[in-house]
């Protein structure tokens, strides 16, 4: 141990204008020894004579100064004007953040990685004003719904993703640790350079690259266990028996059970199964390991990584619900001929295994069936096999032959297991090679060839089984599916930077060509020998009956785009800013005469804080920029050839023969299956944005504010067509929607001695209103049969004057407590609900005509939140770090329908125990009956979806200083709780219900796979 002599160092810390700065941290490098400057900016500290001092303060560039045996060290810190000198990614280029005139936001990769999510989009939640990110299911690997500034269409409303300049439809293959930053282009002026595909916003992802002279090895990992955060309680056997009795009596039947029966349910031969417990899997694992290397010299830089990510599902467990991703990435850049030529590449490869249970509509939702199965049904028979609920199937349970209580139900757990045996994987390779030439100062030509290649392999097995008369399979089945596709993008950009006095210009012109092609094949056959998932290959199937054999294959619909675009960026003294862009897109999806779309934008900015007349505010306002932008962007998200009428040959057979069974004897036929629309053209979104970016109080306070109005016109919409047309409706252009909103992001960073802390919060308000719908009744109707069997329409996808997907039903006004109230519920003397009984819902006769019908249905809920918000709070103290992240929404409603009301024997949640069962017992939950009489769609299905979720709490400690090995710069151990608390009045398992039954529908909880609560431990090591 070499002991150096200790000396006392004193000094003064000032800023550029010679003002002393109090509170600056002065730290001896590699130790805990340090102090802070006094109010007069001075400090004093005992250190070894060869120590290095680190001076740091929020809003200033930190400095390292060797003591070199000096006793007085005065330091001038320069303001970093945090962020403003940073560059942000804009379309086909970068721009100084200070000069940006559009509404964009940037989240850096570190903030994503800290969230320990398997998906970058999920990590973005709560960090992005104006971008609503919602889980469509809590199942591992399920997609997230990303809506930028409100729903602009009832078609595909997802944004365009561009990774390192290459467009792709899905970024779930990316590991958070590989992301340098994500930029979201929200307004039309920013997005218009992406023209045709940017109507729903653009998300630009930059992956990490190496830096000259800095070699770094990092290892990041976490391991966590997940459990369901909140379960819904279903009735147990006793409660169920009581409710069934009451429903029978209320439906004019004799009760099923005597009081004795109910007391002796334990000996009845029936079970008392808690199906929710059965469906959930405890302590499902989530984990991630990433090893990265980066570095470089003056000629070349590189960044590479290898990672594994795994997440098990909390419903059913890893056998049926599981996600594993293996990925590697290598990015490099090389300078040739003294930097005149730059050659670089990005490449990420991911191998993803993903199995999942059904999380779709009421007939394709594994969890939902658990809600509807009586507790009487056991999981297993006496042999430990799944019990077959078919009458007289000879099943033994508790030593006696099983007699079904209700034959219509079947073991939901077994059904989930039987029907979800699969071995699926997909691979994705996304990358590009680029060449940049800078022959003269300011002039750059870049050509880039990008590739998005994927393959999907699916293999599944369903055994022969019988769980009930309805849920059975007479032949085991193997299915194999293969798909591959490749999209390439070729981009050429010429950029010229020049200035004339203080007038700076950047002119960019470019062209791009894009093509996607793919194919798929699928075969399915039955009667395996041997049988089982391991043997589920077509070679092992023996069936030769055509009806049970499927073989199909086709190209995926190809898609081509050809684009020309340009941008002029101008600024005068970095004070007056102007950007204009223009893009022309030709798309193969439209008929020749409507092929080309043109998308202009213009935006301007004024850096007020640079004006002399604003000088007096310099102490408070560091930076203030006003922005205004306008632009048009497009959407071409439809299948190709909608301008043609296809003639369908497949499945159009007729049998003219006289044999009973003649699988090969059908005669093929044909018919035009869809009407054509040759006039189909681009959907257009036009947006006006006004905002400002500001920094106050030595940049400790940052504020971004935006106001926008976005009009989406000429939706690409499959016409809701009358049956009399006789064919599928064509896609048409029709329907307008207006989104108006406000976004505010505020951040505060400060430091008190060793204690650095930050608070950031964002809030966005959006109002969504459909302004025109081109159908005869001004409505694009929603689907029926969605909430339970044969349920009627309960939402309108679009209707003039209402938000997209609003809930449409009767308004209730409590419950009839007695006969008298039924008779008193009148309009103009007519009893409105003459057939109602005490305990039934009282509906509002909106138009007062004394009849309850569709004319009385009104908006009873809106699935679109009024506001989306999030905040992050954190501090660092010495080697500790602590953060809390939260996000939430308010003003939206959820339709909850767990129960199939068409089935009198379906189980209920325990909410039903609060039902009406006599005068005064309830004014909210109606009496139970065996019919759906009280469950015609009304506001009793509708619940408020407001929530605030504490999505992440992390506490970390960096041991690097304790170890004191110079090659380890970080050794941080941390613990996190994800989805720690959710504050909500919603009584479902999870209020974040992104599920909708179709595009243009959302907020529908049919038995939603909830997001887990996760406890995890992580390690970050940096060399």
């Amino acid at each position, binding site marked *: 141990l070499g002991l150096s002599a200790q000396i006392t160092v004193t000094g003064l810390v000032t800023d550029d204008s010679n003002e002393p700065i109090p509170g600056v941290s002065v730290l001896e490098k590699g130790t805990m020894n340090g102090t802070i400057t006094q109010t007069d900016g001075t400090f004093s500290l005992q250190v070894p004579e060869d120590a290095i001092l680190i001076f740091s303060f929020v809003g200033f560039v930190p400095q390292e100064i060797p003591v070199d045996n000096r006793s007085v060290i005065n330091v001038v810190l320069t303001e970093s004007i945090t962020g403003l000198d940073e560059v942000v990614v804009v379309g086909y280029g970068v721009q100084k953040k200070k000069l940006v005139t559009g509404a964009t936001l940037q989240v850096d990769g570190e903030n994503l990685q800290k969230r320990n999510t398997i998906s970058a989009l999920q990590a973005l939640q709560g960090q992005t004003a104006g971008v609503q990110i919602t889980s469509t299911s809590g199942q591992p690997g399920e997609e997230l719904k990303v809506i930028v500034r409100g729903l602009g269409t009832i078609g595909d409303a997802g944004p365009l993703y561009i990774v390192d300049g290459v467009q792709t439809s899905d970024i779930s293959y990316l590991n958070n640790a590989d992301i340098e930053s994500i930029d979201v282009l929200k307004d039309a002026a920013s997005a218009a350079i992406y023209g045709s595909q940017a109507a729903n916003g653009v998300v630009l992802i930059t992956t990490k690259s190496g830096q000259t002279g800095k070699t770094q090895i990092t290892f990041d990992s976490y391991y966590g266990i997940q459990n369901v955060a909140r379960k819904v309680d279903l009735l147990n056997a006793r409660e169920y028996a009581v409710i069934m009795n009451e429903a029978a009596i209320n439906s004019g*039947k*004799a009760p099923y059970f005597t009081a004795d029966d109910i007391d002796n349910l334990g000996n009845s031969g029936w079970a008392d199964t808690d199906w929710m417990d059965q469906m959930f899997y405890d302590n499902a694992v989530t984990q991630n390991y990433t090893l990265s290397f980066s570095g470089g010299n003056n000629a070349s830089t590189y960044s590479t990584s290898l990672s594994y990510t795994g997440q098990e599902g909390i419903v059913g467990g890893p056998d049926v619900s599981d996600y594993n991703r293996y990925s590697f990435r290598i990015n490099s850049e090389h300078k040739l001929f003294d930097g005149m030529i730059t050659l670089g590449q990005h490449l990420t490869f991911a191998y993803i295994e993903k199995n999942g249970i059904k999380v779709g509509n009421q007939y394709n939702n594994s969890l939902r069936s658990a809600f509807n199965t009586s507790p009487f049904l056991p999981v297993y028979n006496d042999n430990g096999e799944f019990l077959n609920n078919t*009458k007289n199937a000879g099943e033994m349970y508790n030593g006696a032959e099983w007699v079904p209580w209700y*034959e*219509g139900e079947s073991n939901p757990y077994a059904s989930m297991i039987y029907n979800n045996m699969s071995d699926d994987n997909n691979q994705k390779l996304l990358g590009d090679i680029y060449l940049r030439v800078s022959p003269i100062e300011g002039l750059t030509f870049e050509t880039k060839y990008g590739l998005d290649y994927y393959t999907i392999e699916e293999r599944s097995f369903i055994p022969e089984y019988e769980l009930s008369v309805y849920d059975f399979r*007479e032949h085991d089945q193997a299915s194999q599916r293969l798909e591959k596709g490749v999209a390439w993008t070729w981009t050429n950009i010429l950029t010229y930077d020049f200035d004339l006095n203080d007038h700076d210009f950047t002119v960019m012109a470019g062209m791009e*060509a894009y*093509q996607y092609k793919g194919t798929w094949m699928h075969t399915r056959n039955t009667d395996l020998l041997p049988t089982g998932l391991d043997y589920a290959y077509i070679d092992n199937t023996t069936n030769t009956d*055509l*009806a*049970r054999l*499927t073989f199909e294959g086709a*190209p995926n*619909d*190809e898609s*081509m785009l050809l684009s020309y675009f340009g941008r002029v960026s101008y600024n005068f003294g970095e004070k007056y800013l102007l950007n204009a862009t223009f893009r022309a897109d*030709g798309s*193969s999806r439209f008929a020749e005469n409507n092929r080309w779309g043109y998308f202009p934008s213009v935006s301007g900015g004024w850096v007020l804080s640079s004006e002399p007349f604003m000088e007096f505010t310099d102490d408070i306002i560091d930076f203030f920029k006003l922005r205004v932008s306008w632009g048009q962007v497009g959407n071409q998200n439809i299948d*190709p*050839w909608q301008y*043609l*009428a*296809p*003639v369908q*040959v497949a*499945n*159009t*057979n*007729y*049998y*003219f*023969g*006289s*044999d*009973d*069974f003649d699988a090969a004897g*059908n005669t*093929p*036929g*044909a*018919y*035009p299956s869809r*009407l054509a629309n040759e006039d189909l053209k681009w959907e257009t979104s036009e947006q006006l944005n006004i905002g400002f970016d500001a920094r106050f109080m030595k940049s400790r306070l940052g504020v971004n504010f935006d106001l926008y109005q976005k009009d989406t016109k000429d939706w690409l919409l499959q016409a809701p*067509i009358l*049956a*009399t*047309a*006789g*064919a599928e409706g064509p896609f048409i252009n029709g329907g307008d929607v207006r989104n108006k909103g406000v976004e505010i992001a505020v951040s505060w960073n400060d430091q008190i001695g060793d204690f650095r802390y930050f608070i950031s919060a964002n809030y966005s308000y959006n109002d969504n209103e459909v302004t025109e719908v081109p*159908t*005869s*009744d001004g409505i694009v*109707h929603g689907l029926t049969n969605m909430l339970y069997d*044969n349920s*009627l329409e309960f939402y309108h996808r679009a209707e003039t004057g209402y938000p997209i997907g609003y809930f449409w039903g009767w308004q209730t006004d409590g419950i009839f407590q007695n006969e008298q109230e039924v008779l008193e519920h009148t309009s103009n003397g007519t009893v409105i609900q003459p057939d109602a009984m005490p305990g039934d819902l009282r509906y509002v006769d909106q138009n007062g005509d004394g009849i309850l*019908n*569709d004319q009385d249905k009104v908006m009873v809920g809106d699935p679109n939140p009024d506001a989306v918000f999030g905040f992050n709070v954190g501090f660092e103290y010495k080697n500790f770090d602590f953060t809390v992240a939260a996000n939430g929404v308010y003003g939206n409603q959820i339709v909850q329908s767990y129960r199939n009301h*068409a*089935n009198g024997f379906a189980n209920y949640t325990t909410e039903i125990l609060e039902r009406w069962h006599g005068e005064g017992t309830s004014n909210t939950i109606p009496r139970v009956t065996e019919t759906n*009489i009280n469950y015609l769609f009304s506001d009793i299905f509708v619940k408020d979806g407001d929530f605030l979720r504490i999505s992440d709490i992390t506490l970390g400690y960096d041991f690097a200083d304790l170890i004191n090995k110079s090659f380890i710069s970080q050794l941080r151990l941390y613990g996190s709780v994800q989805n720690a608390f959710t504050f909500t009045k919603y009584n479902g398992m999870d209020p974040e219900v992104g599920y909708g039954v179709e595009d243009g529908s959302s907020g529908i909880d049919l038995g939603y796979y909830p997001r887990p609560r996760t406890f995890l431990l992580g390690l970050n090591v940096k060399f």
Partner: protein
Amino acid sequence: SDDFLDSKPVTTLTDANFYQTLEDAELAIVGCYDGVQAINQEGVAFPVASEVFSDNCFGGTGNNDGYGYQLLDEFDLQRSPSDQNLFEENWINYYEAIYRVNMLLTKMDQIDWEGDTATMHSIEAEARFLRAFCYFDMVRLWEKVPLVTVPTEENVPQNEPDEIYAQITNDLLIAIEKGKETVEAGRVNKWAAKSLLGRVFLFYTGYYNKSDLVGLVSASEALAHLEDVIASGNYGLVEEFKNLWPAASATPDPENNTLISTYAGKDNQETIFAIKHNITSNYDGDTDGNHWLVMLGLREQAFSPYGRGWGACPVDPNLYNAFEEGDERKTASIIAIDEEGLDFDNSGQREYTGYANKKYIPLALPDGSDMAVQNGGFNFMIGQYQDYVCIRYADVLLMAAELGSPNAQDYMDQVRERAGLDPKPATKANILEERRFEFAFEGIRYWDLLRQGVETAANTIARSTTVLNGGVEAQKVIDPQNIIDTRGLQMIPQNQISLSDNVLKQNDGWN
């Protein structure tokens, strides 16, 4: 250049290159047959619905099922208020079939027939027959439906029944003129068109109390067409009544786990027009199977040769008891569960009566397995293969008799003799009575009642009796007033009314 953006589908044809050749025309007409096959595949199939409406059967189905079939049986929306779209799939499928016909008919001129006028005429006749067939179902179910004869996307209002009947009649007259004389299995010919015209005539003139068919066809002309069918010699009665029906003509052979059958076969000499089926339905879009047969199977239990199904249409004992002594059609048409000694467990059955139909029911092998599945059907629900015989020769005979043929007595005698019965005078009342027994469960009875007037139909169908719901006695009431209020018509799918912005008007009694 723009060429880069050129793209065309390679796995589907487009209308730009279709309807050009004889081969296309053949594909297109098969597409029309396929469309007509689809009308009964979803929703409530016409033959099943017709029996539920009638006095032959109740609604039945599972004791815990929804009450859609009771709604139909009792003409009462309140029985299942949310079932306002019970017929929507049918409505859509009828118009899809009609659209295929309309498309083909509008393209007739652009097809290069290569001088083959006979084929051209036959295809037109088939297409027109199929369109008439669809509209005749529709006008009986819903009466005022939008009459679409060329493809259109317009919001077409409903037409008056006379306009629809005029279209049906015209189509059939052209089909009669241009249709083939030869009989080919499954194919429409002029004899089928003449037979259907007879049925249309009788229903229209009866229900609307008119003397002729919208001024286009007189009673004597209608009769002449039927007489032509009889005189053509192309058709005849199958010798034994039971051999018309797969289940009635099957005897289990447990030793070989097979059925010994005397079935006359599909397309036997008595079939004039049938919607044909095959075992080839699957869940990938092929719908050639008989999808409604499963509704009529015994509730979840098989007793070879009777297959399992969902237990719709339990037969009213009144019908069973009304057969004359010695009428062979009684046991060929009805399964009498106790009398046949079937150990049927009715605890899952709604409106159990002890009787079920035997004409249209899945078949089961002696080991209880489903016949269709054993022979390649996908499953017992969609894999059934029994054809729906819409018009058979016995009907032509009885229609001709009813229309006053000089041979009326002979025609009726032929039918009765085949049933093992002695002659009876060929009065109108006797003929209608005969039809009840001859055509039970063939989707005919209800319309025969309705054409005798709504009041007669209502009073004949009205019931107040006791049935077993899940083994428990329950009152079953069919209020005749409901049938009078609705005039025996059905509800137009509410979704289609909404879509039309109330251009479509709901039928009375269904609001």
